[in-house]
């Protein structure tokens, strides 16, 4: 037939001889449900040499280091939940990005945060979003935060020992009220009122623990979330960029602001100096 030849733009070289073949059926893009291996002679040796776990500094000797380094935090108070994160992504000493979105909007009532391997977090939380949507379609009701976090924890358990790196907080407002869960790559799943995850988490905890009260007003809580991230980005080299802050309410989550932490530094510096002057 003359029609097919005219339409050929040369891509068939990579796909297969059969004109009915396309990128999907030929397997060139991989099979979505299968666990793909690198196309080398010894996949196991290749993986251990080039894909050391991105936990800690196990990828130090590699050519290409994994993207990680973060401060994320979330806490529950009388007015709902505040989720506050930074936006820096580092590969070793290189700042790969200053504008990473570390809060993943799973659905209008569920938020997930990203800490550890950026690829692992965004992939598996997107996968969680798919599972939550399937739950909604099958059960005709929104999934609870407890169930959503359990789905993610089960996935992490299934891949235990495969070198995934993910420390996330799943939060939302369901029938039982505002809920906050911490889930990580070990399969740990904790239900609590306040968590901070990432290389800068200890600095964030310092400010958070000292100034947290259950009866904070919404403005005070937002300010606390903002300050805790700022202080973490000041001291931790692997955190920085913007502070993205969300507030989870009964009606769903709301993005409050996205502020450059560098601007916050000079704002707080002025604040301190003015306070000292008036004393």
């Amino acid at each position, binding site marked *: 037939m003359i029609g097919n030849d005219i339409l050929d733009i040369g891509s068939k070289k990579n796909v297969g001889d059969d004109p009915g073949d396309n990128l999907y059926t030929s397997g060139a893009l991989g099979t979505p449900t299968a666990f793909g291996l690198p196309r080398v002679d010894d996949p196991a040796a290749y993986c251990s040499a080039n894909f050391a776990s991105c936990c800690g500094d196990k990828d130090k000797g590699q050519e290409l280091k994994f993207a990680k380094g973060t401060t994320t935090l979330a806490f529950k108070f009388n007015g709902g939940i505040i989720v506050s994160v930074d936006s820096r992504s580092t590969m070793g000493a290189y700042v790969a990005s200053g504008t990473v979105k570390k809060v993943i909007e799973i659905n209008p009532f569920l938020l997930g945060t990203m800490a550890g391997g950026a690829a692992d977090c965004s992939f598996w939380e997107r996968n969680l979003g798919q599972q939550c949507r399937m739950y909604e379609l099958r059960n005709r009701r929104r999934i609870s935060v407890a169930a959503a976090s359990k789905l993610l*924890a089960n996935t*992490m*358990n299934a891949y*235990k020992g495969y070198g995934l790196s993910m420390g996330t907080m799943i939060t939302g407002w369901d029938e039982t009220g505002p*809920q*906050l869960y*911490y889930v990580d790559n*070990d*399969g*740990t*799943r*904790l*239900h*609590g*009122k306040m*968590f901070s995850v990432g290389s800068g*988490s*200890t600095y964030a*905890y310092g400010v958070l623990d000292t100034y947290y009260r259950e009866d904070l007003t919404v403005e005070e809580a937002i300010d606390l979330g903002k300050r805790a991230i700022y202080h973490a980005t000041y001291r931790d080299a692997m955190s920085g960029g913007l502070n993205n802050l969300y507030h989870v309410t009964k009606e769903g989550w709301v993005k409050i602001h996205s502020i450059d932490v560098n601007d916050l530094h000079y704002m707080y510096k002025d604040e301190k100096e003015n306070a000292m002057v008036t004393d």
Partner: protein
Amino acid sequence: MDSVFALRYDGGVIIAADQANARSILVYQNNLDKIIPLSSHTMMGMSGPNSDLVNFSDFIRANVKLYELMNNGATLTTDAQANFVRGTLATALRKGPYQVNLLLGGFDVADKKAGLYYMDYMASMHPVNFGVQGYASNFCLSIFDRDWKEGLTQEEGVKIVEKCINELQTRFLVAQPNFIIKVVDEKGVRTLSFGEDPADV
């Protein structure tokens, strides 16, 4: 780093566990409950990573409940449950071991006997009068050796457990401010005291 210890007294078993979950230098949570009821009259104090703790105890609890449902409400004795737990640990050992060390305590209402079993992650099991898991054993076993005797009352048992908690808080490098104490007797499993309320989340 978990501290779990238990003793058998005349009429029941007391289990105490610390309430912290930590990783490296950070304490993630301070109000965890690591003593999980398996049935109306048995409970398991567990030590190990949170994922194995939760998955293993959920699996055991579900299977104990399944037995009751399949057998017209017949309950498993403490001994039967302990052997089931050990069997599960043993089967998983050479495939994907559960890294949990535990103390299983229960009271059989039928023959009015209390039983306490010490099990570790390698699926070894032994019935004991008292037991300690973790670093706490270095500090607490001697207290139990000194003070435990046959025919203790519940109050005497709780006093010994509190002595162990005090010793850990005095001498153990890792600060463990919160402990949860549970008891199982004729009336079933109940919480005697806790450092921070596990339900406060």
